[in-house]
């Protein structure tokens, strides 16, 4: 998972598999928790740039692909 698009796609995949019962609860839980950690690390980076009053250039958030509708 190099960037936010990959993370999103991964989570969408996990969500679909979880609904279909193709993945066990523990693996899905750890992936959901991991995504929370990644989101919080991005938040820390954003806060850092905000404190330095700089425009954030975060590679993880660079996203060229269009956002798919993830609403169920």
């Amino acid at each position, binding site marked *: 998972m190099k960037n936010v698009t990959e993370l*999103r796609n991964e989570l969408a995949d996990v969500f679909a598999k*979880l609904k279909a019962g193709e993945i066990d609860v523990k693996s899905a839980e750890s992936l*959901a928790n991991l995504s929370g950690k990644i*989101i919080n690390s991005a938040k820390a980076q954003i806060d850092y740039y*905000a404190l330095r009053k700089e425009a954030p250039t975060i590679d993880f958030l660079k996203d060229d692909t269009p956002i798919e509708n993830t609403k*169920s």
Partner: protein
Amino acid sequence: MAFDEKAYRKAYYEANKEKIIARMAEWKRNNPDKMKEHGKAYRARNKERIADSSKAYHEANRDAINVKARLRYAADIDRQRGRSKQYRATNKEKRKATCANYRQRNREAIAMWDKNYNAANKCRHSARARERTEKLPDSLIRNRLIGKGWKVVPQQLIEVKRLQILIKRELKTAKGNTNEKRN
């Protein structure tokens, strides 16, 4: 002895009073236009006299006239609404001050009414909140993150967060089902 026409007419009228009144009434019935003209001409000729007598009547019967007018006004809801509307339009500032004063004086009572209203409409509010939580709009996720101390919330992270919430929800359901099976 000279002929007194006036006395003769008077005597004739007294002798034939009922007959004359009946004929006059019949003539009035048959000539409504002429009666209307006559009335108009009379009012024009006696303008001051009518005004004086009307004024005297109003002064003598002021209380009774006021009572009747009040009863008429009380029965006419459209007129009341019109007057209230007109008053509100012409006295905006005064009304604002009155309302503020009322709220100030009755703060406790208003708080109690609000509390009762909220209690009575709790189901409606809860349904709305449930629907919003179910749909997970961007604004809800953004507000949740801001509530947790986020200052800037990028759109990409909102998408990821939504997926995370959906997965957690699904996990909760799955766990619930497992517990049910165990029981």
